[in-house]
């Protein structure tokens, strides 16, 4: 793709407004960074009450994202993977859980958790994804019928599916689910002014959200100890590997990780998948007519949307990447959406092609120990959701531009207006 040359010096990836702009803009910037400044250096965003760090390198080439991900001993997650600034260690671990840990601790906890999260266990737990999707779709149609025919793709379709699936898995009671949605929105708001009204209060808002979720977890865990149920929370509080159990703190932070990660990522893949299909009507028709396309279509939606914009790594010693040297302590943000449009790996990368195969995207992270634990759940949810939309909402029509989340970390939509044209 030939694009006009941008003034890269005027680009600031730390400015949250950059991420609220239409994605074409970021992809034009990614393309040019990849070509001209594959390790572009940026100053850190200002977070109230947090000491600003030395800045970070934006990694935009697929090969470099992969090289960093698969060398966890050289590129640590333990200093913080989900924030640019170094957070106080306890905060970092509480909100990041596994994501912000290195081996051996990461390996130990991941193995305990994996036991509760195998494809076969999931199969049993989430046999209801289809039922959830069907019900959500039916409710969306009723909402349109009871009103003026319009719906919000985010609130009526994309948010409730993963929320209900993850809450079913964890055994979160119906009455607590609104709280889960609200607090996970705050934790991943990136400080978007609509979700965190006062930027000065951002850290306080995060803490309060975490506290509320941890409180819910403590209540559930106590209940499950007394009355084990067939859910993931029971598995987490009772699981032992080599005689070791997860501590209360580890369970609480993993619980938050699952709720937050299990909600936001899949929601944004679904909402932006709907948007992508509305922008590519021929692809939408092709998929509607051919359910066999689902496997590759799901991968393409994840590549195209790249719901998590970056994860961070920190050099544990002096390192070299593609012939360039970086001192110990250098921070790297792995821009997955940029790697996922790298022409060195993807032919015609800006083409939305539901039958793209192979599609070695890094939307779930690149090769390495931090590869997304929920990838198989997400794939399944997305596949089931879009088949339900194709079969039951063929009259779904996006009617306006989305409201984008102003966050550099989560590539998300707050709203996407649509209507069901079959509703009169």
């Amino acid at each position: 793709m030939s694009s006009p040359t941008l003034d890269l010096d005027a680009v600031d990836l730390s400015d949250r407004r950059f991420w609220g702009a239409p994605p074409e803009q970021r992809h034009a910037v990614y393309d040019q960074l990849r070509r001209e400044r594959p390790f572009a250096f940026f100053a850190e965003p200002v977070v109230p009450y947090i000491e600003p760090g030395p800045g970070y390198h934006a990694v935009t080439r697929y090969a470099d994202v992969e090289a960093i991900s698969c060398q966890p001993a050289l590129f640590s997650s333990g200093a913080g993977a989900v924030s640019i600034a170094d957070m106080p260690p306890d905060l970092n671990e509480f909100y990041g859980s596994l994501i912000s840990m290195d081996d051996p601790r990461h390996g130990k906890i991941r193995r305990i958790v994996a036991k509760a999260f195998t494809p076969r266990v999931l199969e049993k737990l989430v046999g209801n994804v289809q039922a959830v999707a069907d019900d959500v779709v039916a409710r969306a149609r009723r909402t349109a019928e009871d009103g003026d025919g319009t719906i919000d793709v985010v609130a009526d379709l994309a948010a409730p599916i993963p929320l209900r699936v993850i809450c079913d898995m964890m055994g979160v009671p119906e009455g607590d689910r609104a709280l889960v949605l609200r607090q996970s929105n705050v934790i991943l708001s990136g400080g978007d002014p609509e979700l965190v009204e006062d930027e000065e209060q951002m850290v306080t808002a995060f803490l309060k959200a975490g506290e509320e979720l941890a409180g819910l977890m403590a209540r559930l865990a106590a209940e499950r100890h007394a009355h084990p149920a067939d859910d993931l929370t029971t598995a987490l509080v009772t699981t032992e590997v080599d005689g070791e159990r997860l501590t209360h703190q580890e369970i609480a932070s993993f619980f938050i990780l699952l709720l937050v990660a299990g909600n936001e990522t899949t929601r944004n893949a679904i909402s932006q998948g709907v948007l992508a299909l509305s922008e590519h009507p021929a692809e939408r028709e092709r998929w509607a007519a051919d359910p066999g396309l689902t496997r590759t279509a799901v991968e393409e939606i994840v590549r195209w949307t790249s719901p998590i914009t970056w994860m961070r790594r920190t050099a544990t010693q002096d390192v070299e990447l593609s012939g360039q040297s970086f001192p110990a302590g250098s921070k790297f943000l792995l821009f997955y959406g940029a790697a996922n449009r790298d022409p060195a790996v993807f032919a015609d990368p800006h083409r939305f092609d539901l039958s793209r195969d192979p599609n070695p995207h890094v939307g779930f992270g690149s090769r390495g120990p931090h590869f997304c634990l929920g990838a198989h759940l997400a794939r399944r949810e997305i596949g089931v959701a879009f088949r339900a939309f194709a079969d039951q909402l063929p009259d779904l029509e996006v009617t306006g531009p989305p409201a984008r989340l102003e966050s550099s970390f989560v590539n998300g939509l707050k709203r996407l207006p649509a209507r069901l044209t079959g509703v009169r």
Partner: protein
Amino acid sequence: MTRVVVDREVCMSAGVCELEAPEVFELDTAGRLQVGEPTDLTAVETAVRACPTGALSLVEED
């Protein structure tokens, strides 16, 4: 004969192999990967390539 080797130090029990070749790979109730006879070699090769931690390899034995 082809055999699958698992590097236990590296395996993270992500379950990607089990999705690619469920007849051959299974994470048991302890989260440990169990490997059966590599019957469907194409699926096994896909699983080996797909492993996010590179814990799987194929070796030829007589």
